[in-house]
Each structure stands twice: as C-alpha cells, then as structure tokens.
C-alpha cells in the first residue's frame, strides 16, 4: 500500500547538513501496524512527513498504491491526505471549544459530508473507541486517554486506508498509553487499515506487527524490516 524506496531527506542550515532520513526502504501493507521505534532526533517524524506527502524526498521514491507521491499535484496530495490518511498526534490537536463529537465530525465536514451524517458517524466512531458517553464534552473536560481516543476516532471516522500516528502515547501514563495502543492495534487491523506508528515507547513492541528501529535517519541494520520479536530479543 505505502512503499518507501531508498528515501532520503536532509535539512540544511548554515554550516550544517542534517540527514534526517537516509536511504529508508519500507513497505506498509493493509491491516498491518508498523512501529518505528527510536530516540528523539532519529528521523521518525520526518519519516511521517514523507509518508504524508508533506515533504518531498531528496532521493528515492514514495509510492502509494503504486503512485509516486512526487508525481502528484498539490490538489492530488491534498486529496490523498484528506481521503486516504488518518492522523493521530502526540498533543491530540483537538479544538478546545468544540465537543468531542464535533471534533470528530469536523473531519467529515472538511470532506464535504453533510452535517447530520457527519454527526451520526462521529457518534459511532466515538462508541467504537469507548468514549460515546463523553461525546458532548469539550476536550478540557476529558482525561488525556479520553482525548487521545477522541483523536483516534477522528482519524478513523473518514475511513482512511492508512493511519499515521505520531507518539500517540507520548503525553499519557503507561496504563492509559497501553489502552490507546490496544485501540490503535485493533481497530485499524479489523478494517484492513495500515498503520505507521512512530514512538520511543517500548510498550509498542507488544502491539506492532513489525517494529523498525531508527537511528540517525536510518532503519536499523541495513534498513530492512525486522519482525517485532527479533527486536524485543535484541
């Protein structure tokens, strides 16, 4: 579904070149949860930006369903992000003045879905992530875990083919984080949605189909995927 072939990205600043992502090859399949594990500054977020088409690689290719993202127009990229991707952010990025339901339904309104349908589907999505009883509450009345669940509902409500999750447990305690990871590993999988999850939370190894270790912009070893079990035994 999503294929990165020898993708590289570097940032230039005066007197310094940072190789954020270097020569990365990665294949994400439908229904699969791929965790990218690594310390801060290892290039995980840049990897997500490349996958979302928000950055263009300096070298290599990024293919979605066989189409090169670099060859897409701005409009097509916008459509790609809107309809094919779902995002989960570390800071949740929920709109403070909206209720949980509205935060979810707004993702559908952006795509032109009518108000009633959007509300109905938002309600359903919230039920699936277990916070339907909090649908009428604004984010500041929800716990961190509940907020991230709403964010997951928002990412999934548009029925994307791929979810990009950026440190989804970064702002949560371990118990709550486990609940969120549980959700992120089960729901997309049931729907055949691929997930790329970047984190430095080692708990992710229990949930991911594959875990990739990233250091200094490179996937560990020669950049080839390793199964989760292999990583946990390292």
């Amino acid at each position, binding site marked *: 579904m999503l294929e990165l072939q020898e993708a590289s990205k570097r940032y230039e600043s005066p007197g310094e070149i940072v190789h954020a992502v270097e020569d990365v090859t990665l294949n994400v399949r439908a229904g699969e949860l791929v965790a990218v594990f690594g310390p801060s500054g290892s290039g995980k977020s840049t990897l997500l930006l490349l996958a979302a088409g928000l950055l263009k690689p300096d070298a290599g290719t990024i293919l979605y369903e066989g189409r090169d993202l670099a060859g897409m127009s701005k409009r097509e990229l916008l459509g790609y992000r809107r309809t094919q991707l779902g995002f989960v952010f570390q800071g949740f990025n929920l*709109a403070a003045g909206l209720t949980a339901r*509205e935060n979810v339904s707004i993702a559908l309104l952006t795509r032109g879905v009518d108000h009633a349908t959007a509300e109905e589907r938002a309600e359903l999505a919230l039920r699936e992530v277990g916070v339907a009883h909090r649908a009428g509450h604004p984010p500041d009345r929800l716990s961190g875990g509940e907020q991230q669940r709403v964010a997951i509902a928002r990412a999934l409500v548009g029925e994307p083919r791929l979810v990009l999750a*950026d440190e989804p447990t970064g702002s949560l305690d371990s118990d709550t984080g486990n609940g969120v990871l549980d959700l992120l590993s089960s729901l997309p999988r049931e729907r055949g949605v691929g997930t790329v999850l970047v984190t430095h939370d080692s708990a992710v190894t229990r949930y991911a189909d594959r875990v990739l270790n990233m250091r200094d912009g490179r996937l560990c070893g020669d950049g080839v995927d390793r199964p989760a079990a292999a990583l946990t035994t390292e």
Partner: protein
Amino acid sequence: MIAYLRTLWLLYRRSVRVQPVREAMAVAGIAAGVALLFAVQVAHRSITGSLEQVTRGVAGRATVELAARGPEGFQQRIAEEAERLPGVARAAQIVEQPIVVHGPHGRRPLLLVGATEQVTSLGGEVSSAFEEAANRSRGGILLLSEATADAVGAREGKQVAVSIAGQEHHLAVAAIVPGTRLGPAAQAPVAATALPVAQLLAQRPGRVNRVLFEPRPGREEALLGELRASFGARLDARPVSTEARLLGNAAGAEKQVTLLFSAISLVAGIVLAYNALLLASDERRRFMVQLIRTGTPESMIFASLAFDATVLGVLGCVLGLAAGEIVSLLAYQSVPGYIAAAFPIGGQRVVDAMTVLSALGAGIVAAFAAAALPALRILRSSAQAEPEAVGRALSFTHRRQTPDMAVFALGVVLVVLSILTAAVLPSGTVVSLMALAAGLVLCMPLATRYLLGVARRATRRARDPAALLSVAELRKRSTRAVALLATGTIAAFLTVLIGGSVSDVKHAVSQGATDLLSSAQIWIKPGGAENVYTTQPFQQADAQQRLERVPGVASVQVWQDSFLDLSKRRVWVVGVPTQTTQQLAPSQLLQGSLSRADRLLRKGGWAALSKPIAQELHVRIGQEFTLPTPTGMARLRLAATVANYGWLPGSVVMNESEHARLWGSTAATQLAVRLTPDTTLVSAKNGLERALPKGAALSVHTQSERRSEVNAVLGSTLSRLNDTTIIVLVVAVVSVLALMLSAVAERRERLNSLIAVGWDFRQLTRLVFYETGVALLTGCLMGMAAGLVGQYLIDSWLSDTTGSPVHYSPAWQPGLRTFAIATGISVLASVLAAIQIVDMQPRTAFSAD
C-alpha cells in the same frame, strides 16, 4: 540599586524578545495618542505664543495702550494729549493697515505698521530691528522681514506691488530685516514704514490706530484709569496684553474641540496598547509563575511590571513626540484661517517646556493605565497557579474577581448615564463622552462572550468546518476576540464621532455663509482669503458708480463689516444693507422672530447678538444694551439672538446705515452686486472686472466662489483635525494586521495539524477570516453605533462651544467607509495569514524529532 535596575532591564529585554510584536503595538498605541496631543498643543501654543512674541517685540516695555475701536483710527492730537498724561514715561504712536504684498514668487497678506521714532525707545526687539534696517537703507519705503521677502521674492531696492485699502501701489523695498534679528518673531506677518507714509497709504492722514505707553514705575493702574477717564468713551484704554487675551478667546473654542478629539485619540491609543498587552498576558503569566516558583522576591515582580509600563510610556512618548513634531509641521504649520483674518499671527512654532511635559505626562499615565489591568490579571492568574509560593504582597490577588456581569452592568450604567447627562447638560458632554468610551470598554468582555455564544449557536449546524472551528477557537481564546473587537470599535467610534461632528460643524458654517451670501450673485472686496470676514474698508463711491453702469447689474449694495473688541472677546460686526432681502440669515437665528427682527434691524437702533455676547451683556430680546463703538457708547436694543456667522467668538448684526453712523465712516468693506434676471454670471463678472477703476485692488467673486472661499478658510481647521485622526486609524490597521498575524504564529502547531489532515488554502483563509475578521467587523458595527450616539452628544456640545447652529446628521458615510476598510483589511490579512500558514514548514504538526 544598579544591579536591581539591571535585573529589571534583563527581565524587560526578555519579554521584548519573546513578544516583539506586542511591545511594538503597545508603543505604537501610546505614541499615536501622544503625537496628536502634542501636535495640537504645539499648534495652539504657537498661535498665542507667536502673537505674544510679536507684541513684546513691538511694544517692548510698554504695558498700556490706547486703541481705536475701528479701522479709521483716531486723531493724532488725541494721541499727543494722552502722551502728556503724568503717568507716561515713554509713548509711541502706531498706524496699522492690512496690506497684501505681491512679488515675483507670490503674495503675502501682512500688517503694515507705521510708528513714530519713539517706538525704539520702548526697547522692543522687532521695532529696533526694523529701525536699524531703516537706518542703513538708501531709499525705498517698505521694510520687510526676511521670511516675507523670501516668500514673495522681494529684493532690496526693487519694487513690489502692494494692495492697500482697495488700491494698488508699487513701492520700493527699503530694506529686508534678517530673520536672526527678529528672533522668535521672524515669521510674523508684519511690514513697516514711517508713520506719515503709513498714514498716507492707508488714506488716513493725521490719524493713528493706537498709542503704546510705558508707564512711570508704579503708575500703570493710575495711567489706565486716567486714560479711561479721559478717552474711554470712544477709545479702548487697556493693557497691551489684551490682544493676546482676545486671541486666546478666539482660539478657545477650536482649542477645546481639538483637545477633546485629541483626548479621545489618546484614549483610543490606550485601548490599542491595552489590547496589545492583554494579548500576550498568557505568556507573561507563565513567565511570572516561573519567577514565583524560583523564589523571586514579590517586590521584584511588581517592579518588573512597573518597569515594563515605564519603558512602554517612555518609548511611546519619545516616538509620539517625534511623530507629533512631524504632524505639527505638516498639518498644523499654517495658522487657522479664521484667526489669521483677525490677528497678525505668523507661522512660527512655539514649543515650550509645558507643552512637552504635558504630552510626556499624558503618555506615561496612558502607559500605566493601559498596563494596569493586564498586569493585575497576570499577577492574579500567576498567584492562583502557584498558591503555595505566594507571599503577603501577592495575597491580595486571592480576592474574588469582579464577575463579568457586574462589570457589564457598570458599563451599561455608564453608557446610559453619559447619554442622559449630555442630553440634559450639554456643558458636561466632554465628561459624558469619556464615560461613554469607558462604558463601552467595560461592556466589551461580556458582550464578546454573548456574541460568541450567539455565533456558536449559529455555526453549530454550519456546513463550513472553518466557521465551526473558528468560533470554537475564539470562545476558548476570547482575549484575542476582545482585542479585535475593541480595535474595530475604537476605529469606527473615532471615525464616526470625529468625521460626523466635523462634518456637522462644517455644514453649519457653510449654511451660515450660504445664507449670508445668497443676497447677491456677485461680491467685490479687497484682499484674498485672508479677508474672509471682509473687514478692510475701502472708498467705494467711484467704484460703485462705475459698477452700477455695467449692463445686467440691477443694484450695487454697500456692506460694512468690522471687528470690535468687547471686554472678553473680539466680535464680528456685520453691517447689512437695508436693501437686502433678509437682514438675518435664517440658519443663524437662535431666539426671536425672524420677520420681527428683520423689521427692527431695518428700522435702526436694534441689533442681533450671538448668544454668548447677549449672555455677557445680560440682555434679553427687546432690552437695551450698550456697545462700545468708535463714536462712543451706543445704546441699542436686542432684536434677536443669533449663531456666530462663522466667527467663533460671536457676531453682532445691524443695518449698514447704523454701522456707518456708529463707526463714523461711509467706507464699504464689500460690495454686493445683484443682477437682472437675464444676465449670465460669466458676462456680468467680466463686465464688472473691466469696470473697476484703474489701480483698484478689488477682486470680483461669484456667489459660489465666495462660498468656497469661506468654506475653505473656516473648514480648514476642522478638516485638518479630521485628517490627523488618520494616525490613530493607521495604528489601528497596523494593530489588526499584527494581531491577526501573531494569532497565526501563536497557533502554528495547531494550524499545521490542519494542513496535515488536508485543509486547503481557501479553508484556512476562511478560518482566519472568521476568527479575526468577524470580530473586527462586529467591533466596527458596535463602534459605529456608539459613534453615532457620541456624534449626537458632541453636536449639542459643539453647538454650545462654537456658537454654530450644529444639526445632527448621522455620519453613515464615514462609518460605512471604515467598515469597508475593515472588511478589506480583514480579507487581506486573512489571505496573508493563510499564505503564512501554508508556507510554514509543516514539521511542527508532529512532535519534535
């Protein structure tokens, strides 16, 4: 102490570095208010200051004068008689005559002064400088200042054309007095010649206008008494400083009006600065929490906030004084036309310590006023965030906050009271307007919350996610909404209030001029716009006969107008020919019956007075009063009270024959020409110009040309006032742009996440527009409404202050113009902000990596 100040400076530098836009906006707000206040103060101080300098420069040690009540002056033998009084140490006789000098580079209206040689013994610098120049000249008649010579292109020994008393002369320039010798009076519009020459040119041989006296030590009061006893019936015996006092009165109304508008502008500046400070209060609060946590002494926290306000005030003042200097040079350099018509004032600027200090003081107070509430808010929320670490000094912040509803109620009470007070007591309008502005500000937070609540309900089912999201964001960050709302409100309030009331006053003045000039199709008078009140007499007998013979001319009527000094004011006396259809301009009538007053004025022995003059003389309609005239104290009866006919200190209207009798002169000051029905204006004007006697320095104007001249002169002061409020509007516009762009910068991460999830440029533009533009435009609507109320209140005050019959005409036009500008700015800023967003590196959408 130095270490303490250094710490405060470091804390200040840190806050500037973190929030440079906030600081710049706050400084700009204070600076705008200070600039206007300073410019207006300089302009007014320059008016009275320059006359004082000229008077001192001519009169020297003379402190008492005997002045004629009319332009014809009085016999020199009376002056000589007065000079022999025992209290006189030294005296000098003076002839004054308005002239216009025409040179190769232009024309300049001046006051020609002829004095006896004794004038130099009084020790006046100007007199001495002219005397020195006269002594070194090798011929010629006219002594000009360097400024005048430069303006008209005159050179020593060369001739210039001079219009004097309706006649044109060619006079050789005897000498040019260097500006350095004249000191502060270098720009004074004065020319000099020998006394006999001046008498001859003015066609008043053997007559003078005033005598200056240097009293013997300790005899000033006695001398004044003697002069009054001997000559007081027909002449004014008074201190030399009277002229400056009369000028102060003439400029007083304009000063009050401009000061009020400047004060409103200063309040607007405070609100803009307050907005800026409020906007960054969250960041400041976080920093204060840090300071409290790290055990910073609370005195240091207070001192830091006070230091911020002081630096803000000082920077605002410095920038404001610099901007005010530019504004006063550009917009207030020329003397208001109506004042220059009655007093010899030049364009010299007088900037004294008091003017600078008052502007500085206002700026510092404004900065503290703007900073006080945000500082209190920061302290309170910081203390609440760290209750354990709070000591005694900060404990006051634990007191319960005043609920928004109570603040709103107080605001409403202030608004209602201000309207009622101004309606019942027009003299209290200034205070009422301040209360109205304060009431509006107090209403703002709850009004914003309510409006956002309405918007929330309206957008709940909106299809546009940008609308839904923007209202939600605004409700959570209402400070920004309040700031934008307040900025829009202030901008519209100011534009509508000042634009509307200035337009109403101009309309009132214009209406008076229209009424007065409607009695004839063509007007003939000496001088240009400077003779707007037509008070320069000329011998018209020959001209009148010639003009009456021009084909198409039905009649040529003689008007006699003059200035007359009463105890407190210089009034304009209008002598209306009895042949004129209406003796009183209908728009100017305040009390009395128009037809009855008309009949009585024609009969003679009756006059109409402006309201303040009637009040000062304690006279009511039908009652008798006395008027000091050149021929003695005249007993007249009051036919009606009228407005001021465009001369702010007030007017006296009588028929022309009465004026001729009381002034002892038949000389006209203007001629009104009525045409036969079949005559065209152009042909009549050309015919009249050709018919003027050779050498006549008279100009022929159609009614509309005269009206434009009057409106231009009388309206110029008010127009420039209106123009200078643009400073506040520019600051408001810059503030709005900065507010909108900084709002985007503050929420970079949040907006990036929207880009990441697929929001496009149009959606982002709409989001910013809804968030900021809607608040701004709502503010504009609120400001317009308040401005219209304010305009209504201020109109009645202006009517009282200026004596003009100001009628309320809602200022929709400036209001709508402001609304259109605000819409344009909102759209522009939204597009700019959206460009800024999409150009951002979207990296911040994701966690730092």
